[in-house]
């Protein structure tokens, strides 16, 4: 009876970079057949250059374009076809694919899909109940920025997040990497789940037009309201909370080890003082009162930091949580693989590659939710470039052998990208020295049980 939600749904994923490609990977986890479409001369940027991430054992291997970590995380469980969309044959097969699909995702600039007659009104002519999902920086339409180039890194400033991110008394800052991409990833899933349900009920498809800028601004809503009705511009408060105090990120025992905690009431403060071995502070008028703690936050931070710096971060978390104070260590890309909570929930999923891929076994982020009745899971490794050209063109679309050969000969399809190159690799020791890596564990495969 257990069934994946999107079994039997076919999705064309003609998207690049992070946002919708990652949605495509998650849609495959949900059971959809996801077909990634790339141009022979337009490989996804997660295969090339600075977006690629790491290579297995820092080794480009023979087919470097199939090996980058970011490409492999995002494109898990998909099928891959190459089609040169600048060739009319490529566009014709793309149209044929649309006819037999439920959803098409694309993130070209608005002008491109129009020029190929593949904007929504035209797509609807090809398949009347198609669900189309577009993702652009500023959204389609006639707005002043609609044609502006955009990408998550620079949009983080424009959609307001940098304004509210940063240490107290310092300039705006960024957090994480490519934040707003993920908002589009998750919005696309919501749009697709809802639109598919509507289509099954009414027989009608539609166009979901996502603008990353807009979703970024949505996550600023309370600041915008405060500005509107109270004339307050918000700003930066580091790791502090608007009314809970103390809250912050403090050094723990060891190099670059940190603990976060947040106290919101008098009992929490008394318990914290007890744990710090300074019960008298809970009676000290400078700290005893909620408002005085807010006022003397700097002083409290110093006191807390003097305690935490000589205690292990996990020990801190367990003792603080033990008395009901929200607390947790800062986890990095290594820590998350060994943390008991993430391990217990199987958040990182193992993917075993076929031998000929020479990729071994790797762990990837799964999904931030579990379903009690649908065994959601990564369905398999990422495909190699054009791996399913033959299956899809000959098997699914019925292209004959002779025509297929001419497509190969004319580079309408390919299994090796005709452009792009791998980012130069830096040896691990040098990367450490130059501060490109914070840490390097040479025994990671053994430690992760991936040998």
């Amino acid at each position: 009876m257990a069934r994946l939600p999107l079994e039997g749904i076919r999705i064309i994923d003609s998207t690049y970079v992070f946002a919708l490609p990652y949605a495509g990977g998650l849609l495959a986890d949900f059971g959809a057949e996801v077909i990634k479409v790339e141009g022979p001369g337009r490989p996804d940027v997660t295969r090339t250059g600075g977006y690629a991430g790491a290579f297995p054992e820092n080794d480009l291997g023979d087919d470097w374009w199939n090996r980058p970590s970011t490409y492999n995380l995002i494109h898990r469980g998909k099928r891959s076809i190459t089609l040169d969309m600048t060739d009319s044959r490529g566009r014709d097969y793309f149209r044929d694919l649309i006819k037999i699909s439920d959803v098409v995702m694309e993130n070209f600039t608005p002008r491109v899909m129009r020029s190929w007659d593949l904007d929504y009104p035209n797509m609807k002519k090809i398949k009347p109940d198609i669900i189309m999902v577009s993702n652009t920086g500023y959204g389609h339409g006639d707005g002043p920025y609609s044609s502006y180039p955009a990408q998550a890194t620079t949009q983080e400033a424009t959609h307001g997040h940098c304004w509210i991110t940063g240490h107290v008394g310092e300039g705006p800052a960024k957090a994480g990497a490519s934040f707003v991409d993920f908002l589009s990833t998750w919005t696309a899933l919501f749009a697709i789940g809802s639109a598919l349900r509507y289509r099954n009920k009414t027989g009608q498809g539609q166009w979901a037009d996502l603008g990353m800028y807009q979703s970024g601004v949505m996550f600023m809503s309370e600041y915008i309201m405060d500005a509107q009705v109270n004339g307050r511009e918000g700003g930066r408060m580091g790791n502090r909370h608007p009314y809970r105090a103390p809250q912050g990120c403090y050094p723990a025992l060891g190099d670059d080890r940190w603990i976060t905690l947040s106290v919101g009431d008098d009992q929490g403060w008394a318990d914290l003082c007890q744990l710090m071995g300074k019960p008298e502070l809970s009676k000290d008028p400078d700290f005893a009162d909620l408002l005085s703690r807010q006022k003397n936050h700097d002083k409290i931070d110093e006191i807390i930091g003097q305690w935490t710096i000589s205690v292990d971060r996990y020990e801190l978390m367990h003792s603080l949580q033990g008395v009901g104070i929200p607390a947790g260590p800062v986890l990095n890309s290594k820590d998350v693989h060994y943390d008991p909570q993430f391990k217990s929930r199987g958040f990182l999923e193992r993917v075993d590659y076929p031998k000929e891929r020479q990729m071994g076994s790797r762990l990837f982020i799964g999904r931030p939710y579990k379903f009690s009745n649908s065994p959601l899971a990564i369905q398999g490794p990422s495909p190699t470039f054009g791996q399913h050209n033959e299956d899809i063109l000959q098997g699914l679309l019925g292209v004959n052998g002779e025509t297929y050969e001419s497509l190969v000969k004319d580079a309408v399809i390919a299994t090796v990208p005709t452009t792009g190159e791998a980012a130069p690799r830096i040896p691990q020791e040098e990367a450490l020295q130059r501060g490109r890596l914070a840490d390097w564990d040479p025994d990671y495969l053994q430690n992760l049980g991936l040998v």
Partner: protein
Amino acid sequence: MTSTQSPQTSPLPTPLPHGPLDGVKVLDLSEDIAGSFSGRLMADYGADVLKIEPPTGASLRRMGPFFGDDPHPEKSLFYLLMNLNKKGATLNLETVTGRNILRRLVPHVDVVIESYRPGYLADLGVGYEDLQKENPALIMTSITPFGQTGPYSQYKGEEVVNYAMGLIMSISGVQGKEPLKHGGFQAQYEGGLNGAASTSMALFLAGEIGKGQHIDVSITECVASSAMATQTMYPFMGGTLPRRPATGSNFGHPMPCKDGWIIVQTGGGASWADIANFFGDPQLLEPKFAEPAQRLRNTAEMDQVVLESIKERGKWDLFTKAAEARMLFGLVQTPSELLECPQLESRNFYREIEHPVIGKVKVPAVLFNLSLTPYQFLRPAPLLGQHNAEIYVDGLEYSSEDYVRLRQLNVI
């Protein structure tokens, strides 16, 4: 109106079809940001969402900002934002009667959203297992800091803790200082969006097979999912990414100009020559900056040249010129600039609403645009218990005597 009338000749505007979740009924038991946002997104796209609060009001009603800085329970702007388009009733789940009423509501709904401590509802006898007996197609979406299972499931979360354990802080901020979280409550919004997204998938399946399920969303795992480009460094090559150095890496980070901050990145449609020309300093064409590999070694020097060249220039002028040069470029906007943004205007992003206590305000409304069943504003957030009579008297058919009793017994 008959179907033969065209919209032009009709005396009334053509009604829009309801959203893609039309017909879906949701009980939103959550008191926090994440669960409430999840319910709001479903309401925005057509679901009929009923907010259920304790008689004292959801805790979000005590969270600012407040309208006119007046901390009145009907003036929390956070509550307003997270509960747009919902109806609202009060119900005390800590009473047997309250729980019986919940059990009577459950057969009429498709989804229950909740964000209590894992096990809390089950301890009261209204966990997923219990409620599913009343309605086998029921979907329950639980959104909590660490999820329903695992050694930390009973631990308490706060935004800063979700951010710390969700990897993002390890790469945010600069070396030599403590790691930094995003401003605001991004993790809670992320939990809400993922709650809505996962629920839409379960609803699609339930429509096919008539069976629901329990969805267990972990807010910390939502944050960690946005660390996608970071996580794989370890299982691929044993590496851990650092925070950036405090100096010499300004590209991709805010830089001060005359009247604010801008941010620039290489790539997009602009060549290095375009970028050098934009900043207007010929030094940038020298190989030590023009060559990507050399540029990486001379970042500190390059930062100086760039900062000098923008120090007397305004952010809006830079923003427009950068777009002409097809550069990847941003400027740090303030909340009031976002409020007046012409691009958001063109997308019809804000809606003016009228709230019975707050009055007229403009709210950020539309997460994404849909062609056939677009976002619709139907109602502001409910006043405390606003729809009690509609739900309990009209809906569940309690007599008016019993309805009054329920109030007096602190059930509603």
